[in-house]
């Protein structure tokens, strides 16, 4: 399966997966540390509404996804500290509304939408160079923002009250962090799909938490783990399908998205065991 590395199409796929994993490691760390994974989940499902609108109106579904995810980030980010106990409802509602809108839009769109499954579960094997460039640019935006605003984001995630006492614009910073997370999620939709995004965002960061006591190191571990899972998931998906060339009929068609998530979950289990064995737990 390693000969795949020599194929230009596969190199493009790998590069896309690698770049998306970098955004995922940086933002997943904040999501896990602040314990807002259900919030992140609602952003990815809101994105699906945008995918549907794209089909209906006729612009690129990924553009619609970015629009809807960022809009949801702004709405939830502003409601985050004001709604109190209503926050949970707001998150669940955004989650379901995004899916409902997406399905309704698609059903209204003329003709059959053939690659809907690819938005739900990912379709990294069919990415274009355009996508690689977009993810690279988003990585740059996310990376620069996180570098520049690291202390601010850390303060807002760690202790909102004190962040406000020292005069940080807490709500604005939180909205910016959520909007960046929304963009990161949109890049991951191509890798693992709307439904599985939350796993690729949180599992590598959770593994990072096992081995790091501060956000910077956690980001480093999370990024390495995310890259490792994505690359090995892609290789495995290609390799399993490629078995048919060795022995006709032996090939299994397995999409990379679910494989990547399964690999990450397995790594999480191993990491937990190793942590206990080394006395860190």
């Amino acid at each position, binding site marked *: 399966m390693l000969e795949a590395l020599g194929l230009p199409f596969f190199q493009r796929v790998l590069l896309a997966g690698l770049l998306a994993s970098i955004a995922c490691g940086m933002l997943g760390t904040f999501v896990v*540390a602040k*314990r807002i994974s259900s919030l992140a989940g609602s952003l990815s499902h809101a994105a699906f509404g945008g995918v549907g609108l794209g089909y209906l109106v006729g612009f690129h579904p990924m553009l619609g996804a970015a629009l809807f995810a960022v809009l949801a980030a702004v709405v939830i980010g502003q409601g985050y500290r004001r709604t109190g106990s209503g926050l949970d409802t707001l998150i669940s509602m955004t989650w379901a509304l995004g899916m409902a809108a997406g399905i309704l839009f698609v059903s209204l769109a003329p003709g059959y939408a053939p690659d809907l499954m690819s938005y739900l579960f990912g379709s990294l094997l069919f990415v274009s160079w355009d996508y690689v460039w977009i993810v690279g640019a988003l990585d740059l935006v996310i990376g620069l923002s996180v570098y*520049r*605003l*690291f*202390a*601010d984001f*850390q*303060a807002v*995630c*760690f*202790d*909102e*009250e*004190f*962040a*406000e*006492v*020292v*005069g*940080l614009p807490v709500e604005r910073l939180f909205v910016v962090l959520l909007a960046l997370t929304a963009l990161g999620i949109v890049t991951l939709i191509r890798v693992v799909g709307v439904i599985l995004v939350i796993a690729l965002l949180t599992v590598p960061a959770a593994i990072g*938490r096992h081995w*790091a*006591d*501060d*956000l910077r190191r*956690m980001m480093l571990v999370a990024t390495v783990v995310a890259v490792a899972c994505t690359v090995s998931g892609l290789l495995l998906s290609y390799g399993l399908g490629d078995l048919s060339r060795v022995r006709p009929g032996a090939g299994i068609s397995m999409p990379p998205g679910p494989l990547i998530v399964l690999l990450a979950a397995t790594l999480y289990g191993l990491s937990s065991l190793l942590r206990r064995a080394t006395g860190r737990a």
Partner: protein
Amino acid sequence: MTQPALSLEGVWLSRRGVLVLEDVHLALDPGEVMAILGPNGSGKTTLLKVVLGLLAPQRGRVQVLGASPARARGRVGYVPQHAAFDRDFPIRVIDVVLMGRLHARGLRGGFDARDHAAARAALERVELPDQAARPIGALSGGQLQRVLIARALAMEPRLLLLDEPTASLDERVGGSFWDLLAELSRNAAVVIVSHDIGAVSRNVGSVACLNRRLFMHPSRRLTPDVLESAYGASMDTLAHDHAHHPAPPRGTRGA
């Protein structure tokens, strides 16, 4: 006349239909150390949050260092009673203390050598210089409280608010805490909130009692000894059966 560090005039505040602060008047001079005593649930933390601008009163005027609470942000240090954060959050002691420098950063967004020096100095003042690199999850309750004090000190505040600061400090540190406070009051006004009469020592310039309403006790009339005899041993059932002096109008204090 110098500008007061803090002044509250006729402040009323209700939360969820319950009246928490009733017609509160308070005046604090620069360099003054005031203790606010009151039983649990008497509105002490709420009062601090009004001063910090975290809660807005329904009526009344609040002036902090000559400005509105929101505009005074960054100049008012705060040590909360309960950590408002997750003890399991991946962050080191030094990064928590550096939060006290967030308002003082330059335009580039990062901390410079001055900020690090201020954070280190603050950790030394609370006797935790060797704990800088430890994750907060590994600290004891008393150590964590001292880290929160260090974080407020790193702000180099003009007004410092401490909510039950001695609650989880052990005796040894408790003693040096009052020395620290005396030193601080040279540059800043200090308000200490407590339900514990033992927390009030000779370092406190004035005492006020809060139980929805605030009663000022000018220091010369009410020494800790007087307080103790007035309240008896049990501060939890703070009964105001002794004569109270309403807050004096500005400018007449100590006359």
